[in-house]
Every structure is written in C-alpha cells, then in structure tokens.
C-alpha cells in the first residue's frame, strides 16, 4: 500500500490512512520532515515505523516506535566535512541551504562543526523557499575564495545550483548530500566542467548481483523506468528501499506474527547484511553505520563514479 505525500502538512492524514488499514509495519518515509510529522499517528496506533533515508536525528529521538536503517545527519555531515578537508584539501567552505528546511540546516550545522574542527573556515547562507536565482550565492562563494560549495538541498534547487554554477566557470567543487544522488542532477552537470561530489547510502558497483537484478527489473517494467527518470542507473534510495523491505521481513519472522506490537518489540533484535552493508539497531532505533559512500559525477557520459568509503573518524 503506497502513499506518496508531498508536504509534511498532509502527513498526519496520510499516516491515518495507513494505520486505518491496520498494517503490520510501516516502511517510510524517505524525508525527515514527513516522517516526523507522521510519527505521532504511528505512536498512537502502536505500529512500528522504519525510516528508509530520513537522516534527521529528531525522527527517532525520544520515541521507541520509530527506527531507521540509514545513517544520520550528524554522521553524514561529519563524513562530508572530513572528505572536503582531507581528500579535497579544502580550507574555506561555503554552505547554502533552504531557509526553514530542517534537513538542509541540520546538515550544514554538523558540516560546519566538523569542518571547523578540521581547521577550516565556513561561510553559510540560506535562500528563501521557491527561490530560483542562485547566481548571487555562487558569485559570493567565488569572491570569498571558497574551495568547496556545500549545498545539501532538495533536487529542485540542486539542479538549478549546478546548472547556474556551470555558467560561472567556478573553481570550487560542489559537495552534496544524499538528496543530490539523482539523475536530474547528473543531467544538469552533463557536459560541464563542474566537479560534483555526493555522499550517499549506496553507490552502483557496491553489490554486483543486486545491480544486475535491479537493472533487469527496471528495463523490463515501463512504469519503473519512467519512475527512475527514464534510465537504469541505480539510485541509493532503491537499494535502501530494497534493504528496508527485507529487514521488515526479518522482523516479522523474528516476531513470527503480523501483530504490530510484537513486530515493534522484535525489530531492535534484527541483524541483517543488506546490499548497503550490514544493518543492526542501537538502543535509540538508529542503524549502527560507520561508513558512507562518496561518488562523483563523470560529466562526459552522465554517470556516477565511485570515489571512496569515507568514515566519520
């Protein structure tokens, strides 16, 4: 039973629909805002929910019904900061996030903390919602002499930032979080000299037979292909969704019943080696993860190239 929710404002009602059908466990959501907004409804109904790629700590903090299989913002922010400082040797970073978006602002504050700890300096700005002119921010980053432009923003904005940066022959590299791991961003960077690095949960090539299986499914199923942006590149969310599904099955097997309450108690004990690495839950309900994939955009033929597995240390 799939429900797509566009705004966190509609989340409580959508969650009520799921709970109304008394499902055993809820997989979702992909975004932190929507997950937090729906959390109360799941708690009242006593149904366990498993976040797939929502990385905001608030999703699981202070409750026992919300779990997740992905890493958290503090981890992702630190990993990106380490990557920028150590691998790219950046001394000065420019951070740009959407005003009022808890995902962007959270990541920027963790990145700033880790980057400053690594001896760098940070300048950060926020743009108003529905903004489309990013040239001024790019000019500012250029004139401040920043080595890296960190913009963990949603796809609509990141495609614009990359496209507009391409016209300004910028020297700095653009650094993005898991939201930039998308074909639209790849298209925007195609044929430009933009250096784009993105952190993500899974990069194609991490698990050969999974890649083959998924590619075969995408190419044979028309709707799946269009949903995937018209090509068969594997995005991290697909891999994470795949893993979440199996973790849920493990939980149901462990509780050997489909009663939501039993599954909720069984879920923390589940250990599962998925496509995106081995998954186990800590006492708060977050996944114990120690590395994140970093990949870069190969602009000539619009594909992702695996770079490294960066750790938070």
């Amino acid at each position: 039973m799939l429900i797509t929710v566009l705004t966190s404002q509609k989340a409580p009602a959508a969650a009520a629909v799921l709970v109304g059908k008394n499902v055993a466990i809820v997989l979702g959501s992909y975004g932190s805002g929507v997950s937090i907004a729906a959390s109360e409804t799941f708690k009242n109904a006593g149904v366990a929910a498993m976040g797939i790629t929502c990385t905001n700590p608030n999703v699981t903090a202070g409750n026992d019904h919300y779990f997740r299989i992905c890493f958290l913002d503090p981890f992702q922010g630190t990993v990106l900061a380490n990557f920028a400082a150590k691998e790219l040797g950046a001394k000065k970073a420019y951070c740009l996030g959407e005003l009022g978006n808890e995902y962007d602002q959270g990541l920027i504050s963790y990145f700033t903390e880790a980057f400053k700890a690594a001896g760098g300096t940070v300048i950060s700005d926020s743009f108003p919602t529905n903004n489309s002119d990013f040239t001024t921010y790019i000019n500012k980053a250029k004139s401040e002499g920043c080595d890296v432009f960190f913009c963990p923003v949603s796809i609509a904005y990141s495609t614009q930032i990359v496209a507009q940066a391409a016209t300004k022959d910028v020297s700095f590299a653009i650094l993005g979080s898991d939201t930039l791991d998308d074909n639209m961003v790849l298209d925007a960077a195609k044929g430009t000299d933009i250096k784009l690095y993105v952190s993500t949960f899974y990069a194609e090539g991490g698990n050969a037979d999974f890649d083959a299986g998924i590619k075969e499914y995408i190419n044979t199923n028309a709707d799946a292909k269009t949903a995937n942006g018209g090509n068969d590149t594997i995005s991290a969310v697909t891999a994470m969704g795949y893993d979440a599904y199996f973790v849920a099955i493990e939980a149901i097997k462990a509780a050997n019943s489909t009663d939501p309450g039993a599954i909720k108690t069984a879920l923390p004990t589940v250990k599962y080696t998925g496509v995106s690495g081995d998954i186990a839950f800590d006492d708060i309900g977050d996944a114990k993860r120690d590395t994140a994939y970093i990949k870069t955009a190969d602009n000539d033929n619009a594909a992702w190239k695996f770079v490294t597995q960066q750790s938070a240390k």
Partner: protein
Amino acid sequence: MLNEKKKLNKGSLITLIIILVFLIATIVLENTINPNSLLFTVIRKAAVYSLVAVSMNLLNGFTGLFSLGQAGFMLLGAYTYAILTIPNDVRDIIYYLFQGSSFHVSTVGFFEGILGDTGVAAFISMILGVIIAIVAGGLVAALVAYLIGLPVLRLKSDYLAIATLGFAEILRAIFQWDKLGKITNGANALRGYPTFSDFNIKAENGATVLRLSSFIPLLFAGICILVIVLLINSSYGRAFKAIRDDEVAAEAMGINLAKHKMMSFCISSFFAGVGGALFAMFASTVQAKTFTSAMTYEIFLIVVIGGIGSISGSCIASFLYIACSEWWLRFLDNTQYINGTQLPLFRNGFRMVVFSVVIMVIVLFFRDGLFGDKELPDLFKKRRVKKDGE
C-alpha cells in the same frame, strides 16, 4: 438572529440541538469504532479550520477588511503554544541544534509544581497549562496584529490584502532565522508538547478509559466560535457590519473607523492565534514552513465556499472541504480501474485539480456560496414564514 428579548426562536433551537447531537455522536463514535479511522482526523482538522475560517470571516465577511494574513497569525499562535508547553526534560533534545532553548518555563510544569505531577493532579495541571498556553498564543497574535495594524489598516481593500500577505511571509522568514534558533528552534520542528490525544482519560495501568481526542478540538473551537457569534450579534458586531456596508455612513453616525477596524483585526487575529495553537495540537509538530500563503488561500476559499458573512457557512464548508480533500476525494489520486480498463486521468494531483475547478465554479456562479450571509437558524425560519403566509 439570537435576540435576547424573545426566547430563543425556533431556528436557533434546532441548530443548538444539531450541534449537541454532533458532539455526543463524536464521543460515542470515538469510543466504539476504530479510533484511528480517517473520520476522526477529518473531525479534528475541520474543527481547527472552522475556527480559523470563522475568525477570517469576522474580518473579511463582517467588517469588509480583506486580509490575507491568517497563516501568519496561526504561526504565532502555534509557536507560542509549543514553546510554552514543551516539557522541560525533552526541551533540550528538541533544540539539539542550538544547544538547548533559552526558554525554560512551561505552563504545564508550572501547574504541576503547584498541584503535583502524578495521576489526576497531572491531568488537571496539563489541562490548565494547555488552556493558558492557547490563550497566550491568541494574545501574542493579537499583539502583533495591533502592531502591524497601525500602518496597514488605513489601506484600501486590495492593498490591505497584499500588505497582510507580505507580512505573513516576513513573519515566516523571521521564525526560520537560525539566529533566533534558541527560541524558535530555527528550521527544526517543535514537538513533544501535549496534543489532543493527551486528553484521553487513562486508568492507572495506562489503558484508555475514555477517548476525547476528537471531542476536545470541537469543544475548544466551539467555545471560540460561540464567542464570535455573541460578538457579531452585539452592538459592536452591528458596528462592524455598518463599516462593511458603508464606511462613510458609519463614520457619520459616530463610529470611530480606526478603533473599530483595529478591534476587529485584533480579535480576528486572536482567534487565528488560538486556531494556530489548536493546529499545533492537531499536527503534533510545529514548523514555520507549513504556514505558507497557500494555507491562507485554502482557508479563504473555505470562507468563500461557505458564504462570506455566514458563520455556520464557514463551519459547514470547512467540514465539507477537509472531508473532501483528506478523505472522500482521495481516490482521485490513485489509479482507478473500471472493469479492467484503467481510467486515464486518475493519478497524483488530480484531486487538487478537481478541487480548484469546483472552487472556480462556486466563485463564479454561486457567488454567495452555500449560505450567502444567512445563518443555519435562518434556514429553519424560512420554512416557518411560508407556513404563516406573512
């Protein structure tokens, strides 16, 4: 209309009975059928929206001041309520990005200090704390309304609309500003404060004895709407209507326009603030980004559908609107099959398109909306008049 002299006329009596039946049915239903059914989400959200719609109607419908700032005042009410009632132990986790909040008073905590924080005492102090916070939300909204009203209320109708719309946008930008993170938690959501489901009466072992989580919003919204009805039928309500009908004549009859407009603006903003606090309790999270101009448009279109200048119109229209948008018309978004063949248009977003077309039809051809400026009691009176053949 309710006039004090005669006993409540027949129409209003029937209306009161209908409202009472609806309230009792809500309690009974909630404790019998599946408490997570969508019906209760609709009831809770519709109760909140009807209060805000009525407060907007008081301004646009009864005083003729065309304001589009309702989302801004809801934001103030919601944030004030949340900040005042987040329990102190959870407060620093929620404000994690800003190393804790600089605001450590909680109305609920205050009463718990006096009455004790276990069992019945905790429940009572929770209720008192929530009510105080809701009223505080309204007061903050009314105060800010007074400040913005001074320059803005002199403007002509369409300029007033744009100025109030702009004001709500400015407010949202301020509340998302990370420099104020210590108070507003910046872009992050505020949560953990008492919501409607905290009003369910629980026995010692935590089992729910009586579910009130859908009755409470109706009760709170109902009380506020009753106050607005009393205001509109009072001498000041007639002054507002005079300003709407003919401002020049009203001023010539000794009505101080600036004072009365400001009064209407502040009272409407007070109830929008209370509505914002109730919305926070409904949504269980408060984030500035939900209070957009799209929310004001949504509420304004509810007022238009119900009938500008009709309170019962706004209430009934908000129940219909929320029921349709969240429940009945939801099927429009999912692909539908009639004996095997897939219907073409049905996919995500179709529901909102159908909705906007319906609204356009109402705005163009049923300009008075469902009720025009009549009230529910008038519906029953009309039949009476025909019978007596006056």
